[in-house]
């Protein structure tokens, strides 16, 4: 029996224009915008476009990415003025009749192209003790038990991937960088409301500070920016209430 060789159906493509804010610290004094045209498929994400540019057009384009599947939190960037993960943003969902503007997240020192210095962000994160603080042996000596209801209390804030999309969208964080920022408060919330943790009061005292939760203006930029859908502003409000109550 003879069968015709099957000709794969051609997958339609389209041209997307990306305007990327470039900055090379060894050459540029100021960042500059540069245009790129790329052939894209309907299934392609902004990260694929950046890869195509880096691999085929301009190898000097610099950006962070690691897992490329929305879990590692490396590729948060400002796409058409909104903080998103490049690996979770489909190009076809953006308005491709217009150019797509891509720049680094705001409020952190720009190092090169789409890469910023994340240290101030992680300093804030570290200063809220983002780890389980439990003294003594667990009951029965084996494990610290928790009911599903107790676990659900802080489920939302366990989803944080530390991409800095929320913190770098916060207008209070933009002002002087002294504010802890939404991400640090979210990660404090995750342990403050954990029934196994014994040091909620320490974290509440840290956040009950001039630069702590009271600087939140409930702008909701963080909630809009979070690629994991965490209700960030609500988590901050819950920490405020816990401080007022004096306990979680």
């Amino acid at each position, binding site marked *: 029996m003879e069968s015709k060789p099957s000709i794969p159906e051609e997958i339609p493509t389209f041209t997307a224009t990306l305007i990327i804010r470039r*900055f090379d*610290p*060894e050459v540029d004094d*100021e*960042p500059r915008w540069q245009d790129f045209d790329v052939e894209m498929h309907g299934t392609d994400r902004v990260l694929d476009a950046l890869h195509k540019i880096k691999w085929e057009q301009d190898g000097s384009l610099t950006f962070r990415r690691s897992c490329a599947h929305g879990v590692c939190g490396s590729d948060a960037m400002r796409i058409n003025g909104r903080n998103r993960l490049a690996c979770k943003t489909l190009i076809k969902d953006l308005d491709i009749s217009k150019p797509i503007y891509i720049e680094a997240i*705001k*409020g*952190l*020192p*720009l*190092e090169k192209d789409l890469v*910023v*210095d994340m*240290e*101030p962000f992680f*300093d*804030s994160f570290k*200063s809220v003790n983002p780890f389980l603080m439990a003294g003594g042996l667990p009951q029965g000596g084996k494990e610290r038990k928790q009911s599903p209801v107790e676990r659900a209390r802080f489920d939302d804030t366990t989803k944080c991937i530390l991409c800095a999309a929320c913190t770098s969208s916060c*207008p*209070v964080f*933009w*002002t*002087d*960088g*002294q504010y802890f920022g939404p991400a640090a408060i979210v990660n404090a919330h995750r342990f403050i409301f954990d029934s196994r943790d014994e040091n909620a009061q320490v974290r509440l005292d*840290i956040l*009950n*500070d*001039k*630069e*702590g939760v*009271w*600087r939140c203006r409930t702008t909701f930029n963080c909630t809009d920016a979070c690629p994991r859908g965490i209700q960030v502003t609500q988590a901050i409000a819950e920490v*405020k209430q816990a*401080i*007022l109550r004096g306990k979680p």
Partner: protein
Amino acid sequence: MTTIDAPRTPAPVRRPRRGVNWEKWGWIYMRASGVVLVVLIFGHLFVNLVAGEGVKAIDFAFVAGKWADPFWIVWDTLLLWLALIHGGNGMRTLINDYATNKLVRTVLLSAVAASTAVLIILGTLVIFTFDPCPAASPADLLPSFCPVR
């Protein structure tokens, strides 16, 4: 290699807190006074602009009549203090957010504090010392409702 600094000051230095936590009480004050102010302001607007003859009734005698009543003295004093401190604290927040230069910030904060204090003192003085018919004033300067001495 140069890096472009975002508008931010160097790494945060966290000093241990001492004394009253003004930031927390300021936050609580804004919410508590806000709720009370909604009642005070809309009550004030209703009585002055809607009730009775409406806005046409407002004149010197109308104000004098209100301040002859201790109820309105207390109402207006509360309105004055709560609103000015609420507004002043809001301005303080804005200045802390936007004025990054230490000198500019100090000057602006002092200006807000001074103007709030002056307005509160003058306003309170007027409310409590108001006398529509001061003795020893020439009769032609007095409003018509004053008893002729």
